[in-house]
């Protein structure tokens, strides 16, 4: 469920997430947001704070008052600590400030949905790679892979955005927090290491470099 009044952005998110095999619905204002969230249950709600007709925060509060357990990811242009704290206290699962990378959004959505699957499985499977998100380990052909924390994060990020081109900026921001200034060549070294480890474990080379733009994790 995408609650975002900026139609162009809402459309981008929907297109990207549909490409990740999610089913998306959209709401552009407060009233339709409240209406839809009351009627249906969603795995994850992307919630903008500033909506025409009301605050996204009230949508969240109403939701939690009705004991709904939908995952909520707040997307806000404000990037204010207070909003973030208020959002998380009111029961949001995560907070992402605009402008964000769609790949980052997709990874966060995947994480929320994973956490929401009660007693469910914390294992993500991609061909012969399986990632245990609870133990934070990865197995290739059932053999454990020795990964550094950042390599694990990178692998998870790739799998969460499989078959998509991810920009170097998005990777840098995901792994090191901020958007990086200047030369991003160090990412190449990092990816090379991960690729080597995967190949040594007997896996196919899934990481494809897309000239100039970034990388793609794909089996096709």
């Amino acid at each position: 469920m995408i609650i975002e009044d900026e139609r162009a952005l809402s459309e981008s998110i929907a297109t990207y997430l549909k490409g990740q095999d999610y089913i998306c619905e959209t709401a552009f204002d407060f009233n339709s947001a409240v209406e839809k969230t009351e009627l249906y249950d969603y795995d994850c709600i992307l919630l903008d704070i500033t909506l025409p007709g009301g605050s996204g925060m009230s949508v969240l509060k109403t939701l939690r008052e009705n004991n709904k357990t939908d995952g909520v990811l707040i997307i806000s242009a404000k990037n204010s600590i207070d909003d973030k704290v208020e959002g998380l206290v009111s029961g949001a699962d995560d907070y992402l400030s605009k402008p964000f990378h769609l790949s980052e959004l997709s990874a966060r959505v995947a994480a929320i949905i994973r956490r929401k699957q009660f007693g469910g499985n914390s294992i993500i499977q991609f061909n012969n790679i399986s990632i245990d998100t609870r133990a934070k380990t990865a197995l290739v052909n059932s053999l454990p892979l020795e990964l550094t924390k950042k390599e694990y994060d990178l692998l998870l990020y790739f799998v969460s955005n499989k078959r998509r081109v991810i920009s170097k900026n998005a990777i840098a921001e995901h792994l090191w927090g901020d958007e990086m200034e200047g030369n991003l060549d160090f990412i190449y070294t990092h990816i090379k290491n991960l690729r080597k480890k995967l190949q040594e474990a007997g896996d196919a080379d899934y990481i494809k470099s897309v000239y100039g733009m970034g990388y793609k994790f794909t089996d096709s």
Partner: protein
Amino acid sequence: MKLLARYNRFNIAATVLVLLLGGLCYYFILRYVLIHQLDKDLKVEEQEVKDYVRLNNHLPNAANYKDQEVIFEPASNTAIKRKVFSVNLYDTAEEEQIQGRRLIFGIQSGGKNYTVSVTKSQQETEDLIRLIVILTLGIVLLLLIVLFIINRFVLNKLWLPFSNTLQQLKQFNLSNTTAINTGETNINEFKELNAAVTAMSNSVLKDYSALKSFTENASHEIQTPLAVMKSKLELLMQGENFSETQMRYIQQIQEELSRLSRLNQSLLLLTKIDNQQFKDTEQVNIANTVIKYLDNYEELISAKEITLSKTISGEIIVLMNKTMSEILISNLITNAIKHNTAKGTIAITVDENRLTISNSGTALNSNPDELFERFKKDKVNSESLGLGLSIVKKIAEQYHFKTSYRYQDGLHSVSIQFK
């Protein structure tokens, strides 16, 4: 030099001069008047002698009083010129030389010519004048003492509203948004000054807050189009069959977009710090934060083959906002990585109250004093925004930490003194 001191210097000089000149004039006028009076007395005496002679046709007895002496001397000729003049006398009683006035005139008595000399002592006059001089000097001295006391106590008190206002002006700080509050005064000049200062500070604060909210609003408004552009570009990137040129264009757009978004974030952050939106504080261990961010940027450091050395000899615990401390430290560390040379060095030292981060690099072309200013970058084409260190400075200012920069032996060192 203080206004008061300079004013006093003129004031006292003029007072002393006028008093001395006045005293001098007084002295001469008085002397003239008194001698004139003496001469008159002599004339009276002359008349008395003449009247006596005319009545009795013989000379009176030469009578000497304390300060008057009449002497008759026989004279050969009749034409004795009458004159009045000053003489030096010897006072036998006091055994000292004194001044006197003497009148000489001729007189006929019993067919004989006499010269009469009447002398009056000037002693009393001199005494009077001396008293006056002493009095004048006394007044001068008294005046000086009074002026000194006035300056010392009264004037300082009079100027108190001024020094209060000045103190307020010195403490005036745009970021703490409190207008200048001048004290009450009933002196017109100070009232006017206070009114002007208050009006100025209010308008400055108003303009400043308008500017701040403009920056904040503009930054917020920019976020949404940036988000849309970023998302559309990412969708575009998923397309197949791009030519190499097209891919290069996409990459370039993406880089610039990311730069714009970084710029916007940094400006927003600066505004937020200005607006004191990071209020929650907690005890932050600086050394731990440094270690955390060194770990985070480990890959960046090793990618540039930078040799890292850290010396932690003390523990700095400061009460500050955690996010701010993280921004402060991570900015300093990324700065040291970014502006480093390949295979360079980074040295980090933490002691009881100071954090120093040094990195190898070429000397600055620009003025080191401007290093912490916004948009100051050493190289024109640098990818850096030039906001990192100004954010560091802003945070440091917020908590009254001292920042300093030094370049020595090919090492740039930025230090933060926490206490």
